[in-house]
């Protein structure tokens, strides 16, 4: 269930923010498939930005 929507900073499509979403969570824009990261969640809304590119030391 989506609690609210925000706008994809890449394609400007509406992105559903599911219930239980937390800050720093990675989401995928359903329209352009860009990976987004949740920067902040507040009464004013949800801010997202493009997720950082994979770095060399990322992973298990």
């Amino acid at each position, binding site marked *: 269930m989506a609690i609210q929507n925000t706008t994809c900073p890449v394609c400007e499509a509406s992105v559903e923010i599911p219930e239980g979403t937390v800050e*720093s969570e990675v989401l995928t824009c359903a329209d352009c498939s860009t990976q987004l990261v949740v920067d902040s969640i507040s009464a004013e809304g949800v801010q997202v930005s493009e997720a950082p590119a994979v770095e060399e030391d990322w*992973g298990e």
Partner: protein
Amino acid sequence: MITIGLLHSTIRGDEKLIIAAARSRSVDLILIDIREQIFSRDCWNHRIDVALERSVSTVKGMYAVDFMESIGIPVVNSSAVGRICQDKFLTSLVLKERGVATLDFGMVFSLEQAEELITQLGGYPVVLKPPTGSWGRLLAKINDRDALEALIDHKQILGSPDHKALYLQEYIAKKGRDIRAFVINGETIAAIYRDSAHWITNTARGGKSSNCPVTPELSKLCKKASDAIGGGILAMDVVETDDGLKIIEVNHTMEFKNSEKPTGVSISGAIVDYCIKELGIRN
């Protein structure tokens, strides 16, 4: 109530499962984004009983763990376990030393030594891996001397100092799959097959997962490997060979979100339970 500090960077599906598992157990779990912290004794003000390290960045995660341990907070996994697992050469050395069945390997720094090592490993093909790194990145199957020469030449010119350390491992034809075993303090709680027509079977590279029965042979091998590494929460990559099961490598911040469904095991729940148990042991 016990408070677990989840040390994280980006929150993946794996961390969401851990958060849900903690909630269902009435465990207090606080999210600590390590990218926003100042790891200094004068600045640190979180009150947690145990830390669970889940950073997607190995380097940042290790420093966070070092700091936690320095102020007396138990961490899952410990820095000692993390240091072994983050380096494939160290992992291989520890496993060999403790008599755990694993693939043959060696470390060299030049073409001449690489050729000699490959002869010792039984000839081509061999696998060249960065000693640190994950998700199947920068792995190379070297089929002949020409490829070896080209790869080493590229690494010498383009790579950071780490890339000039050449970790070579024997190549095993995988019969289309390998095994990822989830091991918590020596107990193999679940395992998946990773099926792929490609020689790299990581799910991050498209390998398909399905349930793998936890056989006595797999349990015994993983227990021995866990004891060698130092316990904790580990994911072990295992290959089926003509001589039985062998460990390929061991991971200390395992990803499991796509493995709970095929195995029917709550890996996230087992992780939270282990954190609680570990705290009890230390107290």
